[in-house]
């Protein structure tokens, strides 16, 4: 029997599990889930959701790849380009994931099924849209019971969205601390008083927190029958609540390109240099745009069919890019990442959800107008920055901004200039440890320089 490796995050649900075998990713369906799985297929729900691009397509294999006595069948899901987590998503991505979950819940209800869990980890970005990936989340509906995933939906989707909507602040780091969802009692205390005037918010968050707390004190509440109509009303109300929440995080960096493009023909020249260099590189199958802003250069790569991770810590820029990615189905993964503190590994044994750096290794790293933000904005030495870029991928296109640049001078107006080591010579020395400089070019009259580098090992 060939060996297989169970995915570290696939341990909660006895219905089946995800595993790796011979470099392929599979999902085993266990005998315990046979009836529900057959209902999913026979009702036509699976085919319909896949056709609507709401559920990830899987191939059904009648081969027991694990040798497990619990085996019922094996699924081979369509591969995802890159796995992302909710704490890396902008508001609109989490909102779309919430609406997708409710849409699927409605579709499932219409065919006599239901979702038995409702977590953002069941959703991924695939071909420019949010898509449901957990084929084993469906079960046959019992109208006498309420929605088993209701509290989970409220804590993992509704509360984070409501908090961002009312506070007008990007609160993604909260999702890192509470991957199972923000506890209602805690999250409720952060909601403003005015949020109680919205009926849906009041019911699902405020009242829910109070009743849940009271109920914990009195175990053994008498249970009457629930009904399908009641459940449908709850789903409709949750959908109204999610739809009503908005946030785009317009702040510091919005309009950066408008402003940047006014400087000489800086952006046009930069684009021209990058475009000229790209064909000289070996086949690029993936890329990451570090400090992507609204993704001008990510789009340049996407137009060449290079799947690109566009990462930036600015919520507004990533929101804008996500909307564009969704509209034009671009092969771009827009993510909220602070490169001075990229997402760590979380979950059981810290292996359940790997760190950002463990998930990313691309053929090309674009680091345009970003080094000075890390070196001067965050005091990170060149040596650490170059290690970061090397972990992110192979080839590197990096921009060096000299200290006399107006942007750096602006930054230094607000902090003491302790950056004596910030020189082009030190930059070259630090980067030469890991890379060989293949090309370099001044960007017009800006005084900034672009470098094309390849790693020494290559």
């Amino acid at each position, binding site marked *: 029997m060939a060996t297989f490796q169970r995915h570290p995050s696939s341990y909660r649900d006895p219905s089946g599990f995800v595993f790796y075998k011979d470099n392929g990713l599979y999902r085993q369906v266990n005998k315990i889930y046979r009836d529900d799985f057959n209902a999913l297929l026979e009702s036509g729900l699976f085919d319909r959701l896949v056709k609507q691009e709401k559920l990830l397509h899987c191939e059904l294999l009648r081969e027991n790849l694990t040798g497990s006595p619990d085996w019922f069948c094996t699924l081979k899901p369509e591969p995802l380009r890159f796995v992302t987590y909710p704490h890396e998503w902008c508001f609109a991505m989490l909102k779309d994931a919430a609406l997708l979950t409710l849409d699927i819940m409605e579709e499932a209800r219409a065919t006599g099924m239901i979702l038995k869990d409702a977590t953002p980890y069941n959703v991924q970005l695939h071909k420019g849209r949010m898509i449901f990936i957990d084929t084993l989340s469906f079960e046959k509906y019992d109208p006498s019971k309420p929605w088993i*995933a209701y509290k989970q939906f409220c804590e993992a989707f509704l509360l984070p969205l409501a908090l961002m909507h009312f506070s007008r602040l990007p609160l993604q780091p909260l999702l890192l601390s509470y991957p199972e969802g923000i506890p209602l009692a805690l999250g409720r205390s952060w909601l403003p008083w005015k949020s109680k005037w919205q009926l849906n918010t009041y019911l699902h968050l405020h009242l829910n927190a109070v*009743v849940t707390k009271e109920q914990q004190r009195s175990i053994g509440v008498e249970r009457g029958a*629930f009904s399908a109509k009641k459940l449908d009303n709850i789903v409709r109300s949750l959908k109204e609540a999610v739809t009503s929440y908005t946030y785009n995080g317009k702040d510091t960096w919005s309009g950066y390109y408008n402003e940047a493009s006014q400087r000489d023909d800086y952006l046009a020249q930069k684009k021209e240099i990058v475009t000229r260099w790209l064909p000289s590189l070996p086949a690029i199958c993936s890329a990451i745009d570090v400090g992507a802003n609204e993704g001008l250069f990510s789009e340049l790569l996407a137009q060449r069919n290079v799947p690109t991770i566009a990462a930036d810590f600015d919520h507004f820029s990533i929101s804008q890019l996500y909307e564009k990615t969704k509209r034009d189905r671009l092969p771009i993964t827009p993510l909220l990442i602070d490169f001075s503190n990229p997402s760590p590994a979380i979950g059981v044994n810290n292996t359940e959800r790997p760190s950002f750096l463990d998930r990313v290794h691309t053929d090309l790293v674009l680091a345009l107008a970003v080094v000075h933000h890390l070196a001067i904005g965050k005091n990170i030495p060149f040596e650490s920055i170059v290690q970061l870029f090397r972990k992110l991928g192979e080839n590197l296109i990096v921009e060096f901004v000299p200290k006399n640049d107006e942007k750096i001078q602006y930054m230094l107006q607000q902090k003491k200039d302790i950056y004596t080591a910030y020189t082009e010579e030190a930059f070259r020395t630090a980067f030469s440890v890991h890379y060989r400089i293949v090309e370099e070019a001044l960007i017009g009259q800006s005084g900034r320089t672009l470098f094309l580098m390849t790693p020494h090992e290559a």
Partner: protein
Amino acid sequence: MQHLLYIDPGSGSYLIQAIVAGVLGVAFFFKNIVLMVRHFFSRFFGRKSKVD
């Protein structure tokens, strides 16, 4: 027994769902009337009804 642990997250939310569903039953009853009236008049005044 192991699989019963998986059911736990929602089991504590029965009471709140019963209360919420009760309130929503009344709220949606009136909301549906408003939507129907709006839809009815929109046919005469040519305005698109706002069904959400």
